[in-house]
Every structure is written in structure tokens, then in C-alpha cells.
């Protein structure tokens, strides 16, 4: 099974001076998807129903993952805010052709990722899921 954290590695690899804007945009997008898919799998493994049952429901997974960090058992204001920041950067990178995306945006995205990674590892998903 593919490990979505590899996307974060791709983002780090592209966070260098002299890359093209297309690569910076790709890097920001991969950062968000690396975190989102990682969170989705961890939440699902802990009994939190965030994964879509049907193809039509797929786009709603983002809302479910985001909501999981806003309220309930997995509430974490810090993660929720950094994830929100990542979504904002990602929408700009993937949809807005009028803005210029540069290495600074990738760096900022990775700062958010670092915080989230730390929170996932230390608190939220530090212990392995128990089968229920």
C-alpha cells in the first residue's frame, strides 16, 4: 500500500531555489495531499468514519477529515488551523493562475506540515490503533 507521507518527501525535494513555478505548485499540492491522506488513513483506522463508501462521496472526505480535527475525540485546534492554512495554499496552487507561487509558499506549506507531523506523531496518532 502506498504511503502518502512519500508525497511530503516529494514536496521537500522540490523546495529548492531555481525550480519552476509548476514544480512549486506541485510541491504545495503534494504537501496537502500527503497530510490529508495520512490523516484520513489514521482516522479511519481508529474508527472515525471519514473514508467514502462510494465514488460520489469521495470529495466529501476532505470535509470529514477537517471536521474531525475541529470537534470530537480528535479535536486539535493547532492541527486544524495548520491544515486550513495548507488548504488555502493548495487552492491557490492548483486553481488560481493569477497568483505567482514561489519557493516561499512551499516553505510555508512545509512549516505547516512539520507542525502537523509532530502533532500526529506525539499525540494524536502516536499510539497504534486498537482493533475494535
Amino acid at each position, binding site marked *: 500500500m502506498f504511503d502518502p507521507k512519500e508525497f511530503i518527501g516529494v514536496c*521537500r525535494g522540490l*523546495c529548492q531555489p531555481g525550480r519552476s513555478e509548476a514544480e512549486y505548485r506541485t510541491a504545495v499540492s503534494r504537501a496537502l495531499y500527503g497530510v490529508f491522506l495520512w490523516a484520513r488513513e489514521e482516522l479511519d483506522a481508529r474508527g472515525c468514519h471519514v473514508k467514502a463508501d462510494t465514488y460520489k462521496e469521495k*470529495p*466529501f472526505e*476532505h*470535509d470529514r477529515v*477537517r*471536521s474531525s480535527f*475541529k*470537534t470530537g475525540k480528535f479535536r486539535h*485546534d*493547532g492541527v486544524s*488551523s495548520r491544515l*486550513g*492554512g495548507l*488548504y*488555502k495554499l493548495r*487552492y491557490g496552487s*492548483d*486553481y488560481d493562475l493569477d497568483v505567482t507561487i514561489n519557493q*516561499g509558499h512551499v*516553505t*510555508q506549506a*512545509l*512549516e505547516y506540515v*512539520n*507542525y502537523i507531523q509532530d502533532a500526529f506523531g506525539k499525540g494524536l496518532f502516536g499510539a497504534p490503533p486498537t482493533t475494535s
Partner: protein
Amino acid sequence: MLKTEIPRVVSGRDLIRDLNEAFDECIMLRNMDPDLDYYYAGPSCGLPVELIESKSRFLSNFTIFWITGTDTVQSEWFHTGNVRLLCTEHHLVAENAMTTDWQILATSGRLPVIYEPEILELDNILSRLGVPHMVDRKVFPFLSKAGMEAVSIVVDILADRIHSGAPVAEVRVEPLIDVDAGQWTEVVFTIQVNLNTAEANKEWDRVLENISEARRNIAKPEVATFLGENIGTHFTWVTDRDV
């Protein structure tokens, strides 16, 4: 162009609502009797305004005129606080009297709601920050009364931090919308700080803790919900370290 002062100040939103009702009335009258040259409709709340659709002069286009206490049909400025509306033969134009920014609201048919009172209210709230601030006007459709109260709470928390020495360079208020599925929207404070990564994260978490505490103490559940689920705070900072 004749300019007419109207003594009573009305909100832009009320005015547009009344205009929309008048439009609907015009359309209904025209459907009932398509051969008339003019269709008159008066707004419901007693504004000194009437709407006329003139079929004969402008064919299928709706044409708006204002009548303000006289029987003269003319284009003129209509003042609503700091926004004034100009009705010409083909356009309804709104101008911000303070900034002179202007936009065409409509050329025909129904008019969009403008958020003049909310713009002024939010600007007043944000001025408490004491640092440069910018507002993306696309947030206004998401700012209910409870939303505005929640925004005010966040601003007070940020203002407190700024007055305590947090080096905030700029605050922007923007919408964050789920582009892919349209499932969620947030009103986001983007706070640019002159701090390194560790200090920025610490300051950010402190602000979040303060917001969380405020949320626990709010008596109004709709404000608490908005604060918890529909407002985001995003810190940004410049870093040159290897991340």
C-alpha cells in the same frame, strides 16, 4: 446629472431588497398585460423610490428611474450612508463615497445584494487591531450576525496580543472555500508575523488557546459554533531555514 439628497439614510441591503421586490412586481405586471408602455412598482417599506420599467424606450432592457417626491422621472444619485447608487438608463452603479471605488451592480433584471452596512461594521471592528488590515469582500455572504460577533471576538484577542508586543505586520480577512466539493466555507484571518518558526507557532497556539477559552465562555451557542467551525486563523511568516 441631477443629484438629489435624500434626508433619510437607509441600508444598501434594504434598498436592494426593495428594488428586487419592485422588479418582481414589474415582471408580474408585464406578464399580466404585455402591451403597456410602462410598469410601475413601489417598494414595500416606504422608501421614497419607485421603479419603472420602460418597455417602449428600451425594448427588452429594464430601465430604472428614481422618483423622489416629485413627478419628474430622472436619473440621480441615491445616498445610502457611505454608498451611493446611481441609476442610469442601463446600469445601476454603486460608489463608495469614502474610497470612490465603484462597481456596476446590474444592467437589468434582479440586483445583487450589497453589503454596505457589514463592510462598515467590519472595518470598524478591524480598526481595533491598530495594524494594516485588508478585507476580501467575498467574505460578506458568509458573515451572519453571529459570524460578525465571532469575528469581533477574534479581533479582540489579536488586538490584545498585538498590544502586548506580538509583531504582527498585517491582517487579512478572506474566505476559504472548499473549491472541490463546496462542502465548507470559513472566514479566515491571515496574520503575517515577523517571527521565526518556533516563535510564530508558539504565538499562533496562544491565540488559538485564547479563542478556545473565549468559545467556552460564550453564552450564545450560534456564536460559539461559528467561532469553532467557521473561523480560521492562519499565521504566515518568512523563513529561510531548511524545512
